[in-house]
């Protein structure tokens, strides 16, 4: 890693009275791909949404040297943090082209002039979108909508791209293609990726590092190799879950 792009310390978040994140620490370097793994309900989505400032949270969040923890969602989005939401967030009644142009509206001011070239680059990265430029986005298949979502976020020229469950509802072969593209994106768009995923194997293939979240806390983190080969991920998933369940059971 060439330098720290994002550093969060002691991040907590709650929905009403239910606390979901219990002090998460995380670092992401420039041009790094980090896989965010963890069972359902671990708080992955919440963590990404907190980073995008659409869920209120406490704790330090330093992005590119600036503390962003008091920023609004809109400001974060236009300052280099892209977010591909869970469920893709497609604007179903807009055309594919309009969806992408919408992404470009979040570009930093100084990059407005290069939007055209980036649009071409998105179409180059996802040729299937080019063929469907004028189509209503709601008519795209799930996989195409996922590509559209990534393309739309890239149009904002983020430095950090948060991707929430890209494999959700996709056929294995499509997922594989998508991850191949994600692996290339980092160099072509010089962007760091934080990918929340259930598919640990595939994520670890393209990631440099992985962080396993369980019950709102970081359970394990390390390089993708360590976690992948040692099968530590599975142990961390199950191990943590079992320990906690056991503890609760004993308390009852």
């Amino acid at each position, binding site marked *: 890693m060439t330098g720290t792009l994002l550093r969060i310390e002691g991040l907590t978040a709650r*929905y*009403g009275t239910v606390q979901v994140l219990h002090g998460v620490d995380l670092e992401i370097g420039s041009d790094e791909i980090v896989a965010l793994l963890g069972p359902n309900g671990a708080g992955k989505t919440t963590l990404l949404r907190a980073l995008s*400032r*659409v*869920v*209120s949270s406490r704790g330090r969040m330093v992005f590119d040297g600036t503390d962003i923890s*008091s920023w*609004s*969602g*809109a400001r974060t989005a236009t300052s280099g943090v892209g977010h591909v939401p869970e469920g893709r967030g497609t604007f179903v009644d807009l055309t594919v082209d309009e969806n992408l142009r919408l992404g470009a509206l979040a570009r930093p001011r100084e990059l407005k002039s290069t939007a055209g070239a980036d649009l071409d680059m998105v179409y180059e990265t996802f040729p299937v979108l080019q063929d469907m430029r004028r189509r209503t986005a709601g008519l795209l298949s799930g996989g195409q909508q996922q590509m559209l979502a990534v393309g739309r976020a890239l149009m904002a020229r983020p430095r950090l791209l948060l991707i929430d469950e890209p494999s959700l509802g996709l056929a294995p072969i499509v997922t594989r293609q998508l991850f191949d593209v994600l692996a290339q994106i980092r160099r072509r768009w010089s962007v760091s990726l934080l990918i929340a995923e259930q598919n640990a194997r595939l994520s670890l293939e393209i990631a440099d590092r992985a962080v396993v979240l369980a019950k709102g806390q970081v359970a394990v983190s390390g390089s993708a190799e360590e976690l992948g080969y040692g099968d530590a991920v599975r142990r961390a998933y199950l191990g943590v879950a079992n320990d906690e369940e056991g503890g609760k059971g004993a308390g009852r």
Partner: protein
Amino acid sequence: MRHVSRLIPRLGWIIALGIGVILPLLVSDFDLLDLSRVLTLAMAVAGLNLLVGHSGQVSVGHGAIFGLGGYAAMIPVVSFGWPWWAGVLLAAVLSLAFGILLGIPALKMGGANLGLLTIAVAVVFPLLLIRFQPLTGGTFGMFLPSPAISLPDSGFTSRQLEFWVCLLALAVVFVALRNLVHGRLGRALAAVRTSSLLAAANGIAVNRVKLIAFAVSSTVAGVAGALYALVVSIAVPDSYVFTFSIALLAASVIGGSRSWAGAIIGAAIIVYLPTLAEAFVGGQAAGNWSQFVYAAGLALCLIVAPSGIAGAVTSLLGRAFAYAPMRRAVVERSTDMRTTSTAP
């Protein structure tokens, strides 16, 4: 603690009924007229509450149904010499039929479209009254030369008798609606209101349940309208214009569309606000000012007391007596949803 908190409202109703029964012996005939108006309007608003508060449907046309009931009672009583209760009965039958007739297509449309259909009814109704002049008396409407409800030898005035009749009718309506809401239909309505999709999946005949609510609500409004017209001895198209329909809807919300006491509060506001305004600004401006205050109150209520005046009072009392914890929990959850979905 639990049964005490349940007893308090019941006791309150019994005391209120008791006061109601002796009230005609204490206040002047002049005041009784307004009080009877409150009772009948409260009935209509309660019917609307069943729709708005308990089944999640909107009617912007209950003023017209109220008027339909009024004319259905006035025409036979004035023109054909029927006894007043027969007129009320006819009003009930006609408004029930009308509710079903209106409800069927309305359900097919669903959502905002039901609102539109009822608006159309509210708008067209007074025009039709004027058009069918031979039957309805046109613009001048129907006029009762002498009170319809009277017992000449009883020693009670018509105003007193009217009040008792209205009170009895309101009590019957309240009890009936309450039982309806707490019974099987009520549970079905609650399910439909939360999610009609889910309700349908659980084997509830969504459309039938909604239709029943609409028909009952319409019947209640019709009977209320009949009594109202008989009490004030007049029915004119101008009384049943679009703004009256929306005033009823607003009364339901201001009072609290999930509270029966709220219906009385809402009705009292409709009746007394103009009088009150007149005390401050005289003449024609009074009507405008009372409409303005009404609107401002309505907006304020929506924002600060979304469950209406009765709802706000209940939850205040609840805090004092630990009453109605369920409702508070629901409110809390929904506000949480709101805060989580916006940035700090």
